[in-house]
Each structure stands twice: as structure tokens, then as C-alpha cells.
């Protein structure tokens, strides 16, 4: 047996199942049912971690979620998980763990020299010590601190495991499966209510697993098993173990993290999610989250071997592990006496109880006397002895009488009273209240539909917990509409007295002390001492939230579960203000850390965001198209041939459109079918120009503004019937425009009878453009009259194209003769292939969005989102021609605001670099005097910029202050590579009169 601190018997572990694990590279044995903490303790491993600031050796303080010290790195490689509490890690065979804040190991840590720097690391050291000299922060201090304060290492690759999200609607959610929670869940489930009981541990029972209590004359685990069995038999009840209720949000919405499987290690099951994040909406909530024992504050209270008394009892009872051989217990309340009896029974030699109070409960006093445990009344520990492990204590009387007494021991147990775990209550919006009798904060008035029961509500006796649990469960069910609210009768348990806590906040200084005592820790994880809290108070950080941030108390990954109340009490003492007046900090979710993987669930990789593809997508892919993302759409960017690069492909595609014919998949254009007797009047209000006078079968380009006058979207709308229009929108704005139309119809103009329906995905749109477009369309639709008079520019015809009924729109975004052939989506691929086949004779080339952008920019056509950014009006774009003077429309009044008509606003212009080979980068800032001393006024920026194969030169569109009056002016773009000069022109470089469109 290689586990020297494992008791010969006892505990809930499976002694027959031996598990092997490594910590900091050394191999150890444990048992099924162990936590990593209990197994390390059984093996006599005392130093688990190094503290953040001082690199002091740290051991295990607690036995649960509140653990501040024993935080480890779990696993390796991509499956590594930093900052996990050893007290919550279920031991499994092959588990690999290591310390997070030490090198090469927690036991032998090079960084411990940081302890020598400790005078520099007092409260607020971030703000003071490292302020000067300038530049040193980045080069010296920050890397130094980062290395010293290592908080674990990130995984080396993407998380290999899968995570699920679950959704549940319940009548009663019970958080915590100890005596109060089990009673509450049982009472609620008996009414037929839908009940969810979530407990963070591997088995139900909570505090009952850590002590020898009797319920109805039977061992407590029997009662736990009976309650679990009863719940399992209720069809509407669900028990989640290994499940932490981590967050309490608005409207009784709670988050529960359920741990289901290990990493894909030896025991992992492929395909099974590692964790489930439950989204629970509960009508009623019962908080039965128990309480956390508080440490006492004395020098050396962080030495390995100094731990919480209740935790030591839990290790003995639940895991059959002895936390040490010879113990001294320090307390300010009665609960430590029970722990003393438990530990003595488990085989630990309890040497003494150091009780800060003069009188302890009589019964407890008698029992320890019978065991020969020495009792020091009115006494405290002046300091723990030992560095790497505790080896004794110095005990002094609080009144200073008599000599200090030293006792050699290897275990020091602290009980500073118990703090209800009010985290979820606080998260729910409730304000905690200070209970002086308990020396702790308890739930105050409820803010949401919840109630606390048992220790979570400040009731520290078992009988009280059971009674409150049954009552809370029955009342919660009744409030949710189930049962009469009468609590079932609680089983009998032996009566106990309360804790009799005598708060012991200020650390007593030794009589005639020199002040040269060691560090006494308040927050173990953040390495905050009592002196830090007092320093913060002296320096004026008197509000609790200020003290917290200045000292970092409570800012660790443990959120100060064990330290907060002590810190608040010390501040209260330093300021001579009552604790109730100091108040407590706000607890925020999560209660314990939640992995990003669990938050993401299945929404990762390809499932992060939907990918939308057109009906012709597979053809593009098979032709080697390079795609670009436009919103959620995958659009062909360009179609490289052979070894062509992007520039080469775009040049070829552009020339094909200008000289022959090109074909573009425009199916992603937003299409909104608008019908109703008021459709025309409605369009008049949402577009800057008039639509109610549009003739049947005709198309019109429209500009849409927001009410502030800024351009929001543009597109072509066609009148299909007297009360029927088809609006097109930019690809990225389709959903936004539909929402926009609905908002105005529903909220502002409900009297208009108009119906808007998205038909984007119902139609495939195939755009053919180029001087040969008409010939090509004739081949495809021989019956369709295509003459200039028969089918003019900006008209729509219904026709049969390639044997498929189609709407053909004669509109153009490229400046060439162009037809947009719309066919039902299911025919999109077939018609596209017909177009390609018929187009071969005309020299057709498929083109992508890049070519489309070059061609439209050559024409000076804007793209919403390129030439506009939410601060650009139609006047800025020189598009006054589209702004009606005869009617009101959304945004019109704003166009008359003084700021909008300023002549020096940025206006759309063209740019021709003096060096014809130059292509300006988009976003480049423009100045008039590039060589003057800074600051150099920036008068504009480049919005679109391309190489034009048609013009044989680079060109750009830009927004320039007062730009339209600056035609001919040379502006400069100062770039990293040098200054590029360009001449301002009017926007529009190709066929400015539009002959090619109208032909």
C-alpha cells in the first residue's frame, strides 16, 4: 500500500478499484471515488501549487468548489484544461495533472525567489511599483510579472471534445443535493411538479457525505439513497449529478453545467459529449447550495497542512484519507468540536482545540475532555510554524496573559465560522443581509421566484436544513401550481445547538509584538494579506468594490469564496464601521468556471454560422471558382483558368464582358415580393424617388435612406402588376431591408395594406452582360422580341428562356447591355448550363464578384458598404437626381439639416493616379500637403480602387471633402511604400453617356 495517509477502512471510495495517475510527472495510486485532491492527500503530497504573487507553497484548503489553492493544469496537448480545482476533479485511471504556477514543479519552484521581492508586491502593486521608468513596463516588468503569475497554460490545439446544449423548462429547480436540497426536491416531486435537482458532486448527499450523521435512526447515506430512489421513480423529476448551477439570470433562467465524460482519454467514449450546458427556465427555484467554512487569519495560515476543519472531516469520512497525523484545531465556533470528534474517531490524534471564545457549548466541551483533547479557551494561534509544511503552532491567550505555547503538529485545522453560499441568490438580484449571529451574509429579500433552504439560508443545523428543505420544496411546488404547499413531515434527527460563532476578524497581534510577523492571508488565491486590506483602507480605498479591485481580493478564479467575508470584516475593522454598512461585493456568474467549449456547444466549425449557397453553387465549385463570403452567402469571387492568378482572371473576365459577353450568378440579390393596394404609396415613402407612377413591366433604381438621411440600401424595383412589385436589395442587406419595411408597416403606417415576402431563395438570377448579351438571349429565347423598342432598358419581360418560364429584367450594373434572367431556383443550374452552352459561340466567360466590382466602379456606380458607411447622404454621392422634391420619404427632412448641406462634406469623386500603373489601396487617406509637418489634415479616403483592364490603368473612387469642386486637383495618399499622387475627377470613367446601356 503506497498511500501512507489512507485510513485502513472507511470512506465511500472503492478500495478494490485502484487507479493510477501522475502529478507533476510523478506516478501515484488512488481509488475510484477519489478526487485528485483526496488521492494526492492519501499519497502525502502536500504542496500542490505555488501562490500567484509570492510563489509560496500551497496545499489543499478545502474539499469542494470553494478551493482557492489546489488549482491544477489537467491533461496535456489539445485536451489540456488550465485552472481546475483538484477538489473537484474526479480521479480516473491515467489522469495527468500538474501545478499551474510553478516551474519545474510545485515542490521545487524556481519562482519562489519572488517571495524575496514581496515588499514590492503589496496591495495595488500594479499601479505603483511598476510605473517608472517609461518603457520598462513593456520590456521588463510585464514579461516578468506574466511569467511569475502564470495561470496555467492554454491548450495546444482546438478542443477535441464535443459539447451539447440542452434546454429544460421546469416547475421547480433545486440547486444542491445535500439534506435541504434532497428534501426540497422530494417534497416538490411528490406533488407531480416537474422538478430538476442539480448537484455539483459525483453523488447526492452534500454535507451528509462528510460526517457520521443519523437520520430517522439510520446512517444519513441510507436516507440519501431513499430520497434519490424516490426521485428516480417520479416521471417528472430529473436528477443531475456532476452538474453545477453556475448562473442565475433574469426571469428565472439558470445555467447548469453537467460534466458527463472525461476527455477522449482511456475512459472517454467517442461521440459522447463531454459536457452539457443546460438552459433551464424554472417557475420556482430552491437554493440549497450549502455553506463554505471560513479560514482564520493568522500568520502562516496558508502553509501546507493548514486547512479547513470541515474539509478534513470530509476527507476522513468520504475518502478514508487522513489529512495529517497530529492535529491542532483553531476555531471560533462549535462546529469544529464535531470535526474534532470525527477526526479522532478516524484515527487522527487531535492534540488541542484553540477556541477564541471563553465558553463553548457545554456538551462539546465534555466530549473533547473525555477524549483527552486539550482546550485553550480565549486563545488564538499566533502563527503557524514551518515553511514547506506546517510543523507546529504558537498559541497565545487573547488577553495576553501567560506565555505563548508551542505545539508540534503536522495538521492545523481552522474553523472561522460558515458563510452561506449566497452566490446564486446574489446573481438573481437579491441583496444579501449581514447576520451578526452567524458572522456572515445571508439571503435578504428575494428578487426573483426563489427561496433558500438549509445552510444556504443561514440555517446550520441538520434538523433545520431538513425542515426548511421540505417546506421550501412544498411551497415552491405550490407556487408553481402543484400541491397544497404543506410540507411533508421531516424525519427525526438529534437536536444540535447553533454554531455559537464569535466573530474573530482582526488578527490579534502578539502581546508586545514587534510587527515582524509573517504573512496572514485573507484571499489565498489572489495572495492578499490582512495587511493589504488595511493598507487599502489607509490609502482611501474604503468602498468594498474599490478595496476589492485595489487588493485583488476576490478577483481570483475562485471569486473569493473562502476569503470575501474575512476581507469585508477586516475592512470594517480598519474603518471602524459595521460590516452591514460595508456591504458585500456582487457575485457574478459563473459560480465556478465554465469552459468556452461548453458555451459554444455544437456551434463551432461549420455549424458556427449557416453557409448559404445558390442553386448554381456546385457548378462554380466544379469549375474551380474561388469564393468570397458576402454575409452568409458563398459567392464566386473569380474563376481562374489554369495557373491564372486573381489579377489575371479578373482582367480576362472584365475584357470578356466589355468585348463579348459574361455571365454572373446574381441569385444572392435580395428579392422582396411586395403586394397590396397601397404598395406603390408605401414604396414612395421608403425610397427617395417616386415608384407609384412606375409603369407596368418597368424597372426603376431606388435609393433607401434611414431617417437620419444616410444611405441605407439601393436596388432595382419592378412593377409586376397594379398592386404588385418586386424589390431587389443588396446581397448583404436583404434581411435588414425586409425587417425595415415590416417595421414601418407595423409600427408607423398600419393603415397601409401592404404585404412583404422574401423570395430571395425562390429565384435563381443569371445575369448576362456584354455587347453580345442580346444575341445570346436571342439564342436562348427565340420568341422574345429584343429590339430597342420592344424590350427597352429598364423593362421586364416574361418569357421562356432555355425552355423554362422566366422573368427577364433589362438592367445593368456593369455598364454593358445586360439581362437578368430570373428562373425558379430549381431550374437555376439547368438554365445556367444552357447559357454557358449557347454562350460558347459568343465567347462567354463566367465572372465573379471582383469583376462585377471593377466594372461597376468604372461606371462610377456605388456599392452600399463601399462608398457608403452610414455617414453618407445621396447628396454626398452626387445623386440629387434620385431625390424627389415632390413627396415625403424616410430621411427627407434630415437632408435639409444644416450639417447635411455643408459644402465641405465628403463627396464622391473619381481618382486617377498620376502614375497609371499605380493602384491605390482601399481605405487610403488623402491629403493635400503630404510633406508638411504633422498634423496633416486628411481630406478624404479611397472607397474603391482597382486596375482597369478596359482603361489600361489604375483608378479609384473616393470620398473627398468638397470633392466635386476639386476636379483636376492633385491629392496625395501617403503610404508606407511612398506617396501616391492622384488627380480628382468626376466618378465615372467608362461610357459616361450610357450609350451601351440603352442601345
Amino acid at each position, binding site marked *: 500500500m503506497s498511500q501512507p495517509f489512507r485510513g485502513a477502512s472507511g470512506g465511500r471510495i472503492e478500495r478494490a478499484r485502484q487507479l493510477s495517475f501522475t502529478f507533476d510527472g510523478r506516478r501515484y495510486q488512488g481509488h475510484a471515488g477519489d478526487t485528485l485532491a483526496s488521492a494526492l492527500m492519501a499519497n502525502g503530497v502536500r504542496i500542490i501549487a505555488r501562490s500567484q504573487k509570492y510563489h509560496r507553497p500551497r496545499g489543499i484548503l478545502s474539499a469542494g468548489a470553494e478551493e482557492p489553492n489546489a488549482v491544477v493544469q489537467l491533461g496535456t496537448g489539445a485536451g489540456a484544461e488550465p485552472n481546475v480545482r483538484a477538489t473537484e476533479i474526479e480521479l480516473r485511471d491515467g489522469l495527468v495533472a500538474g501545478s499551474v504556477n510553478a516551474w519545474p514543479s510545485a515542490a521545487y519552484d524556481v519562482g519562489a525567489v519572488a517571495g524575496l521581492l514581496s515588499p514590492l508586491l503589496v496591495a495595488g502593486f500594479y499601479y505603483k511599483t511598476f510605473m517608472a521608468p517609461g518603457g520598462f513596463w513593456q520590456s521588463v516588468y510585464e514579461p516578468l510579472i506574466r511569467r511569475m503569475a502564470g495561470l496555467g497554460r492554454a491548450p495546444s490545439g482546438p478542443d477535441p471534445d464535443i459539447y451539447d446544449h440542452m434546454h429544460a423548462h421546469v416547475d421547480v429547480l433545486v440547486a444542491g443535493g445535500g439534506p435541504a436540497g434532497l428534501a426540497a426536491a422530494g417534497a416538490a416531486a411528490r406533488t407531480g411538479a416537474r422538478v430538476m435537482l442539480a448537484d455539483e458532486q459525483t453523488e447526492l448527499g452534500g454535507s451528509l457525505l462528510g460526517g457520521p450523521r443519523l437520520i430517522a435512526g439510520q446512517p444519513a447515506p441510507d436516507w440519501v439513497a431513499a430520497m434519490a430512489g424516490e426521485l428516480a421513480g417520479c416521471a417528472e423529476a430529473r436528477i443531475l449529478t456532476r452538474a453545477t448551477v453556475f448562473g442565475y*439570470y*433574469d*426571469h*428565472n*433562467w439558470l445555467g447548469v453545467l453537467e460534466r458527463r465524460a472525461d476527455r477522449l482519454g482511456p475512459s472517454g467514449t467517442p461521440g459522447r459529449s463531454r459536457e452539457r450546458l443546460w*438552459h433551464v*427556465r424554472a417557475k420556482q427555484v430552491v437554493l440549497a447550495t450549502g455553506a463554505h467554512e471560513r479560514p482564520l487569519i493568522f500568520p502562516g495560515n496558508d502553509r501546507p497542512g493548514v486547512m479547513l476543519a470541515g474539509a478534513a472531516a470530509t476527507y476522513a469520512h468520504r475518502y478514508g484519507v487522513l489529512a495529517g497525523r497530529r492535529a491542532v484545531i483553531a476555531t471560533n465556533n462549535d462546529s469544529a468540536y464535531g470535526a474534532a470528534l470525527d477526526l479522532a474517531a478516524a484515527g487522527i490524534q487531535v492534540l488541542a482545540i484553540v477556541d477564541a471564545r471563553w465558553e463553548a457549548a457545554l456538551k462539546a466541551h465534555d466530549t473533547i475532555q473525555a477524549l483527552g483533547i486539550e482546550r485553550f479557551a480565549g486563545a488564538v494561534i499566533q502563527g503557524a510554524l514551518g515553511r514547506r509544511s506546517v510543523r507546529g503552532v504558537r498559541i497565545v491567550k487573547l488577553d495576553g496573559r501567560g506565555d505563548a505555547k508551542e505545539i508540534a503538529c503536522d495538521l492545523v485545522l481552522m474553523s472561522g465560522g460558515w458563510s452561506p453560499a449566497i452566490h446564486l441568490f446574489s446573481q438573481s*438580484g437579491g441583496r444579501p443581509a449581514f447576520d451578526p449571529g452567524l458572522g456572515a451574509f445571508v439571503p435578504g429579500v428575494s*428578487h426573483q421566484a426563489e427561496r433558500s433552504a438549509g445552510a444556504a439560508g443561514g440555517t446550520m443545523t441538520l434538523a433545520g436544513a431538513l425542515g426548511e428543505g421540505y417546506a421550501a420544496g412544498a411551497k415552491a411546488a405550490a407556487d408553481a401550481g402543484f400541491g397544497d404547499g404543506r410540507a411533508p413531515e421531516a424525519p427525526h434527527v438529534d437536536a444540535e445547538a447553533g454554531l455559537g460563532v464569535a466573530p474573530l476578524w482582526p488578527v490579534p497581534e502578539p502581546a508586545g509584538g514587534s510587527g515582524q510577523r509573517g504573512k496572514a492571508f485573507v484571499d489565498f488565491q489572489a495572495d492578499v494579506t490582512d495587511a493589504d486590506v488595511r493598507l487599502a483602507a489607509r490609502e482611501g480605498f474604503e468602498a468594498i468594490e474599490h478595496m476589492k479591485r485595489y487588493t485583488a481580493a476576490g478577483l481570483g478564479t475562485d471569486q473569493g469564496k473562502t476569503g470575501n467575508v474575512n476581507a469585508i470584516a477586516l475592512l470594517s475593522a480598519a474603518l471602524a464601521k459595521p460590516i452591514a454598512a460595508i456591504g458585500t461585493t456582487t457575485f457574478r456568474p459563473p459560480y465556478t468556471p465554465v469552459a468556452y467549449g461548453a458555451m459554444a456547444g455544437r456551434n463551432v466549425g461549420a455549424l458556427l454560422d449557416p453557409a448559404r449557397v445558390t442553386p448554381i453553387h456546385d457548378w462554380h465549385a466544379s469549375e474551380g471558382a474561388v469564393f468570397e463570403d458576402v454575409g452568409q452567402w458563398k459567392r464566386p469571387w473569380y474563376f481562374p483558368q489554369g495557373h491564372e492568378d486573381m489579377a489575371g482572371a479578373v482582367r480576362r473576365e472584365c475584357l470578356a464582358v466589355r468585348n463579348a459577353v459574361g455571365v454572373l450568378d446574381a441569385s444572392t440579390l435580395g428579392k422582396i415580393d411586395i403586394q397590396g393596394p397601397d404598395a406603390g404609396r408605401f414604396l414612395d415613402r421608403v425610397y427617395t424617388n417616386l415608384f407609384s407612377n412606375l409603369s407596368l413591366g418597368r424597372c426603376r433604381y431606388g435609393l433607401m435612406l434611414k*431617417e*437620419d438621411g444616410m444611405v441605407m440600401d439601393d436596388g432595382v424595383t419592378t412593377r409586376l402588376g397594379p398592386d404588385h412589385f418586386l424589390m431587389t436589395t443588396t446581397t448583404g442587406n436583404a434581411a435588414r431591408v425586409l*425587417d425595415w419595411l*415590416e*417595421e414601418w408597416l*407595423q*409600427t*408607423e403606417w*398600419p393603415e397601409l395594406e401592404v404585404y412583404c415576402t422574401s423570395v430571395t431563395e425562390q429565384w435563381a438570377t443569371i445575369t448576362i452582360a456584354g455587347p453580345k448579351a442580346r444575341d445570346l438571349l436571342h439564342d436562348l429565347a427565340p420568341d422574345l422580341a429584343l429590339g430597342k423598342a420592344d424590350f427597352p432598358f429598364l423593362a421586364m419581360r416574361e418569357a421562356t428562356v432555355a425552355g423554362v418560364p422566366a422573368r427577364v429584367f433589362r438592367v445593368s450594373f456593369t455598364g454593358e447591355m445586360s439581362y437578368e434572367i430570373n428562373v425558379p431556383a430549381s431550374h437555376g443550374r439547368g438554365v445556367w448550363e444552357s447559357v454557358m452552352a449557347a454562350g460558347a459561340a459568343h465567347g462567354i466567360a463566367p465572372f465573379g464578384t471582383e469583376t462585377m466590382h471593377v466594372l461597376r466602379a468604372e461606371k462610377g456606380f456605388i456599392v452600399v458598404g463601399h462608398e457608403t458607411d452610414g455617414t453618407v447622404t445621396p447628396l454626398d454621392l452626387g445623386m440629387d437626381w434620385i431625390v424627389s422634391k415632390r413627396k*415625403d420619404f424616410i430621411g*427627407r*427632412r*434630415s437632408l*435639409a*439639416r*444644416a450639417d447635411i448641406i455643408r459644402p465641405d462634406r465628403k463627396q464622391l469623386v473619381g481618382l486617377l493616379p498620376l502614375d497609371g500603373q499605380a493602384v491605390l489601396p482601399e481605405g487610403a487617406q488623402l491629403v493635400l500637403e503630404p510633406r508638411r509637418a504633422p498634423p496633416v489634415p486628411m481630406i478624404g479616403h479611397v472607397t474603391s480602387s482597382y486596375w482597369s483592364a478596359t482603361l489600361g490603368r489604375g483608378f479609384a473612387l473616393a470620398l473627398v471633402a468638397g470633392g466635386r469642386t476639386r476636379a483636376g486637383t492633385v491629392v496625395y495618399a501617403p503610404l508606407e511604400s511612398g506617396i501616391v499622387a492622384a488627380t480628382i475627377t468626376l466618378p465615372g470613367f467608362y461610357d459616361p453617356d450610357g450609350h451601351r446601356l440603352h442601345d
Partner: protein
Amino acid sequence: MLLIACPWCGPRDETEFRCGGEAHIARPKDPDALDDAAWADYLFMRRNPKGRHRERWVHAAGCRRWFNVERDTVSHVITAVYPMGKPPPGEGG
């Protein structure tokens, strides 16, 4: 995560909805009658009360209908849900 009772679909999670800001701001009947300051007030100025507030919400990932919600901005308690165009509960109409 608020639980919002859509008048058409019933109580649903907040993530299905989008908030459209303060309710009961009517578009001026004659924008030209407003000076720049009054127009800017309509455009930009919104109340940000601590306590009871009326907002427009739309069931964006549901029935896509707009409606009004009366919500306490501190407690997040929703005290009323009522149709567009109707006055707040207890205020005329």
C-alpha cells in the same frame, strides 16, 4: 434571459426577439414644420429611465410581429405587453 410573452406566440426566450427602443415616438406628420432641433429630438433623443419603461419589441425569430412592452429597467420585470398603436395600460384609450 428575459421571458417575453409574444401576443401571437406566447412566452419565448429573449434571444428570439429584438428590441426596437423606446415606444410611443410617432413620426411627425409634417416633418417640414419642425426646426432642426425638433427634428433632431425626434431622431436621436430617447429616454433612459431607471424603472418603468415602454419599449417596442419584435419577435424577430418567430412571427416577426411588433408589439409594445412595459418593462422595469432595474428589475427587468415585464408588467405589460400590448399592441402597437395602443396607449400604455392605464393611460387613456
